[in-house]
C-alpha cells in the first residue's frame, strides 16, 4: 500500500525532497521504506523503524503518532518534522 510522506525542515534537507510516496501498512514499515531509499534521512532521523529523538510523525495533519504498529490507510499523509516547535 502506498501512502504520501511530507517532509519538513531537517528531514526534507536530508532526503532532498519535500514529498514522496512510501510503501507500508504500518508506521514502522513506512519508515523502513524511507530509510532504505533515503540513507541520509535514515542516518539523521530513523532508527529501527522508529523516528529518532528530536523528530515527530503526524498523520494527516490531525494527530501525532509514534507507535510503530500504527495502522496506515491508503490515501493517508504522513508528516515528518522536527520536534521542537519553539521560536
Amino acid at each position, binding site marked *: 500500500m502506498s501512502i504520501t510522506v511530507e517532509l519538513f*525542515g531537517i528531514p526534507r534537507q536530508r532526503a532532498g525532497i519535500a514529498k514522496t510516496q512510501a510503501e507500508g501498512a504500518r508506521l514502522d514499515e513506512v519508515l523502513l521504506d524511507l530509510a532504505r531509499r533515503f540513507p541520509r534521512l535514515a542516518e539523521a532521523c530513523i532508527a529501527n523503524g522508529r523516528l529518532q529523538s*528530536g523528530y515527530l510523525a503526524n498523520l494527516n495533519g490531525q494527530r501525532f503518532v509514534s507507535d510503530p504498529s500504527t495502522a496506515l490507510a491508503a490515501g493517508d499523509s504522513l508528516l515528518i518534522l522536527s*520536534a521542537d516547535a519553539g*521560536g
Partner: protein
Amino acid sequence: MPSHHPGPPGYHGCYLRIDVGKQCAERVGLAEVELRKFLGGSGLGVHLMLREGSHQVDPLSPEAPLAFVFSPLVGSPLTTSAKFAVVSRSPLTERINDSLASSHFAIAGKRAGCDAIVLVGRADTPSILIIDEGQIRIEAAGELWGLSCRDAETQLRARLGNEYQIATIGPAGERLVRYATISHDGRHAGRGGSGAVLGSKHIKAIAVRGSQRARLAEPAQLVALAKQLSDKSFGPATAKYRELGTAANLLVFNRLGALPTRNFQQGTFKAAEALSPEQMTQTRAKTRASCAACTIGCEHIYGFRGGDNQPGVRMEYENLFALGPLCGISDPDVVLGASRVCDELGLDTISAGGTIAFAMECVERGLLDAPWLKFGDGNALHRALHEVGRREGLGALMAEGSRRMAKSIGSDALTFAPQVKGLEMPGYEPRALQTMALGFAVGTRGADHNRSGAYEVDFSERVDRRQPGLEAAGMAVETEDKAALMDSLILCKFLRGVFTDFLAEAAEMLNLVTGWDTTPDELRATARRIVTAKKHFNILCGWQPAEDTLPERFLNHPLPDDPTATLTPERLQGLVAAYNTARGWSSEGWPTRGQIAELG
C-alpha cells in the same frame, strides 16, 4: 566602586542602583537567601521589581525602576549562559515584563561587580550612561539621539573603545513606542516595551565595562560539565536550529493550520513556501552566527535577492510570521527589509507586525480611514513601520499597541485585536494549538511563547491539540516552570532538547557554580515561586481573573480554513481553572496567603 557585598560563588551579592536624574549610584546588598530563592534573570528581576515598588508607579514615570539582571551562570563556561533579563513593569501591558537577550553585555555588566543594574530617575536631557567598574557617569547623548540602534552602538563604541559593551534604544524607544526594544550587538530584549522605559529616562545608551569576576565554587568540575554540555549542543537535538533556524516552523505550522495569517483570520498562507527557509536557503546567500558564548549558532542571516550590497538580516520564525503571513506579505525581500527596519528603529517585530496587521483589518472593515494600509502591500508595511517608529501619522496610534488602539477606535475592534493583556500574540494560532491558547491566556506577561512552552504539549501525542482535556493544564504548568527556571539560571531554551533530566542537570550546574546543595525538588519549588511572584506583581498592579482569556475572535469562531479548530469559552475557562488549581492557587487564580508570604 569595588563590591562590598561579597555574595556566594556565582554572585556579587548586590545590585547597582543608579538614579540617572541625580547622577548617583549605590550598591544594594542581596542576601544569599534572596538569591537562592530567585536565582537571577527573570526570577531575581521580579523580586527586585517587588522590592523596588515598581507596581506602584507608572512604567514611564521617572520613579519606575528598570532592571538589567544577570545570573549565577553568566560568566561561567556553560554554553548559552551569556544572557541577561531586562525587567520592569511593561508600558504596553502595565503588568510584569521580562525580556531576555544574549550578548557580551551580560558578561560585561556582571563584571561591573553586581548581579543586576537597576535604573531609576530621569535625566534632564537625552543622555548616555557609562558604567566603568561600577563607577557611573552621565554624558550628553548629543548626536546619538535619533540614530538607529546599530549606528548609535557603533558610534559610541568608536568614542569609548571596544572594551565597552553597549545597549541602546532606537528612535522608537526615544518616542516611547510601547513596544520599543533595547538592543545590543543586533540582539534585542524585545517584548513588552523595555526600550520605552529606558527612553522615558532620557537614556539613549548604556555602556558598561568591568573586570570583577564572580568566583566559581568548583571551577574544574564546571569546565568538565561545560565541555559535556557543549558536545551535546552539537548533536541532533539542536540540528534544526543550526541548519535552518526557528524559521523552519513556518511550513510545519502552515501544514497544521496553525500559521496566523492576515491578523489571525486564517491558519494557512498560500505563499508560505516562498518565505520558508527551505526555499530561501536555495535562492539567496545565507550566513550563520551565534550569540556570545553559544555553541548552537541558531542565527541565520539572509541576504537580499540579487546580492545588492545591503547587509544581511537575521530571520527568526517570529519576525518572519509577524511581518509576512500576518500582514499578508509573500515577498521574502519585503519581510527581510521590514525586519531590518524594526532592528534599526528598535521595534518588537511581533507587536509591530501584530499591531499593523490589526490596523490593516480595521481599514478593511472601514474602522480606520487609511486606504493605503492593505494586507499584502509591502510598501504599506514599510511605511507603517516608519510611522510607528517616529510616531508620525497613523503611527502615533499604532505606537500604542493593538489593545489601546482598539479601545481608541471603539466599535468591535477589541474583539479582533490580537493580544492578551495588551501583548500581541506570537505566531501560534490558538484555535489550532489549544494548550498554547491556555498558555497565552494565563501568561503573566501576556500572550507569550517564551514564558510558556505549552505548544510542546500540542506537538505531542499527549493531547488532541484542537480539543485538549483538562489534563493539558498540568502539562502547561510544567512547561511554564521549565521556562521560569531556564530564564532565571539563565540558559537558552534551544538547549532544552539536550537534557535527559533537566531539573537534575540544572541543579548540578547551579551547585558547581554556587557551592549550594540544590536538589531537583528545590528547583521545582523555585520555578513555582518565580511564577507566583510574577502573578503577585500583577495582582498588585490590579490584575483580575477576567484578564486570563483570549479575544472574542478566538472563542466560538472556528478557523475559516479549519472548522474543526474551534475553541469555546467554556473549554478555555475550564483549562484556566485547572491550570490555577494545578498551581495551588484558587480556581480563579489567586495565590494563597502562604504562597505570598513565602515570596519574602
